[in-house]
């Protein structure tokens, strides 16, 4: 077991190193020079002297391998450098913005999970019942309705017409609508997976046997199929949780939340190298962490893995 844990740890470190290398290569392969972009964005002369001075200031005047080695060394020792655009330390920006994205992302997934069980069970039991219709509509709606449109609609209705929330709200209340939107987009995929698991069990012989013995359908479905369906749900949840870091950008922009997503959008346009490199490594670490947690959950849910 310790040997397996060590091997897993080494594998994770190797993956993170490869992610850092890929991050550096991909970001540096992007066309355009951040110094020039930064100058023209604010109506300044992009003459060779100023561009070179910015390169020197940002450490872009060295050979690429040296730049990578220096950046990686700094990154590992907690100096994630400064944003070209904001001039602020990137680690501080991440520390401040990541919680905002996590609240929105995980809050949305949590609210979605609250609705997943009742909807999926109802839909599995009665494929033409109201729960199935609601679930199908929610799934289709989440695919068809853009999050920014839904966000604007909710803001208009609740903030302008009813005036029960603020467009520029502060405090915990400002998270309510963004969380509901993320919940709406996550509900369909999660509930459909859970429903499919339950539906599969409901067609199984052993389930019919349980019913023939006089078991209550709800109790039998949960008892016979709950664990199996949750196994599928954990896989779907892993995929959904993966994009929490940076994937809530649209909602953040519409609701003016200073999360990681908005920072990322600005940084891509300005070729803010160190922000993008840090983001890719953080996202890779996040995915690894989620995969690790998901593996643990599967281990608990699936006796065959023990």
């Amino acid at each position: 077991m310790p040997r397996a844990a060590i091997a897993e740890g080494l594998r994770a470190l190797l993956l993170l190193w490869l992610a850092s290398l890929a991050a550096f290569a991909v970001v540096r392969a992007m066309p355009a020079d951040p110094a020039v972009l930064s100058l023209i964005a604010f109506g300044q002369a992009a003459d060779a002297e100023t561009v070179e001075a910015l390169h020197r200031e940002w450490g872009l005047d060295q050979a690429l391998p040296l730049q990578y080695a220096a950046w990686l060394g700094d990154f590992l020792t907690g100096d994630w450098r400064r944003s070209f655009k904001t001039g602020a330390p990137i680690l501080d920006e991440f520390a401040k913005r990541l919680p905002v994205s996590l609240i929105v992302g995980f809050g949305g997934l949590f609210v979605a999970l609250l609705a997943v069980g009742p909807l999926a069970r109802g839909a599995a039991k009665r494929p033409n019942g109201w729960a199935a219709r609601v679930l199908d509509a929610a799934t289709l709606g989440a695919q068809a309705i853009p999050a920014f449109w839904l966000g604007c609609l909710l803001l208009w209705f609740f903030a302008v017409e009813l005036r029960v929330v603020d467009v520029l709200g502060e405090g915990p209340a400002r998270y309510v609508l963004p969380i509901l939107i993320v919940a709406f987009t996550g509900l369909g995929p999660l509930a459909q997976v859970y429903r499919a698991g339950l539906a599969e069990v409901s067609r199984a012989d052993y389930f019919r046997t349980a019913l023939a013995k006089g078991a209550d359908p709800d109790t039998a479905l949960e008892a016979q199929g709950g664990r199996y369906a949750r196994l599928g749900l954990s896989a779907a949840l892993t995929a959904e949780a993966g994009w929490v870091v940076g994937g809530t950008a649209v909602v953040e922009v519409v609701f003016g939340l200073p999360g990681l997503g908005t920072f990322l959008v600005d940084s891509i346009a300005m070729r803010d190298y160190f922000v993008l490199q840090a983001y890719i490594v953080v996202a890779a670490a996040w995915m690894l962490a989620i995969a690790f947690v998901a593996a643990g959950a599967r281990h608990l849910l699936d006796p065959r893995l023990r």
Partner: protein
Amino acid sequence: MQFRILATAAALALAPIAADAQTRPLVVGQGFLTDSLDPAQGVAGWALQSHGVAETLFTVDREGRIVPNLAESVRRDGESFVIRLKPDLKFADGSPLDATALKASLERATKENPRARGQIGTPVLDVLNARELRLRPERPVAAIESVLAEFPLAIHKFDGTNASMTGPFRAVEFKRGESLRLEPNPFYRDAASRPAVTIRRIGDAQTLALGLESGEVDIAFNLAPETLPRLKRRPELTIKSTPVAYQYMALLNTQRAPFDDVKVRQAVDLAIDRSMLVAAANGGEAATGMFPRVFPFASETPRKFDAREAEKLLDEAGWKAAANGQRMKDGRVLEFTLTTYPQRPDLVTIAPVIRANLERIGFRVRIEVTEAISPQLQAKRYDAALWAMHAAPGGDGAFVFEQYLRSTSTTNFMSFANAPVDAALDRLREIDAAPARAAALKGIEQLVFAQAPVVYLMTPVWHVGLSKRASSYVPYPSDYYVLRADLRASP
């Protein structure tokens, strides 16, 4: 009796709200917010100037003229310039802005910020007396007033931790990426008559309009045109529209077919009916050239629209119309991709109008919308691109010509190379007097018109939405000065 008690209770409950409405800061909603309160860092000087916190020695007035601001005057003294400050200037912390403080500010700006060094290098600075400073730039500078109006040279005093500036407002609370709370600078004239202000960064145009409608935003800066009909139906709101110092244009990549042929470029210039663009964008003016008409060096006559002459030029260039109207040459179709970007929604709106104009004379045009156009331009991976830019950020027109049309410039996205234009720009560097510079700029513009590497389209209007409290606000023709000393709040 019961009614009276209820009414009194309601009045008491609502009283704080009413009082709050009177005293709460004016809320300005806009898409940008400073990233720092130190004007020497990055482009913070630009944002702080726009927020009414920072000032420069010279500034650009409503008519696009460079006028003294903190400086009373500047005069040439050989290769140096003597800057004379206005009397009794103070920073927001109450300390005097004299020649010594000015020297410290310029020294720090040029030491800390490469953008400032890009203006005047590392200058030699000598204090002559309490109000006069001699500045010798590291490299020759022609239009010094324009350079001294540039944001990297925003005047400030740095105490090692905080920067104090001279604008009509000073920062009280800053939440990066979110908001900036300002109070009137007590050491600026008429401080008592200015309200406190909170600037909120609102990245989405629809959210900005909704904030105005919900009463949370008093000044909604740069509203999207599609939100205007809805907002104009609300009697409590005022919408003010003003032409701005930005110009919309189409950049033509002269290294790529079909725009490697000057006749094709000229045909595009002639074939676009600018009045249709203005109508599509819900306001604005047909372009007369590189500069909006607010500037004294702008050309006066709108660009000519003559589709027949455009067709003639295409015929001369060998692009013959087939039976279906599509033009061909050596088996190739006359086609190109028109690239635009969503950050300027007007450009996305006018792109189909441009396509319709050009398809009428036989072009085939594809429209491409890209999230980040600047990298594409810099890599020169485009055929034609719609572009918006401030035509004279420092109040001097030489800048854009130098940056976009000099053959050696790194931001010459069109790969335009024309010896007479380069020579004219060289001569312009030797000219100091504003009238002579204006005449020279107009001459350069004529040279550029003849080559048409750029097709000037229109001068846009910006729309500012105002609550009743902010209804006296008068927009400036630039986002460089959103908050100014004349800001007032109505009761």
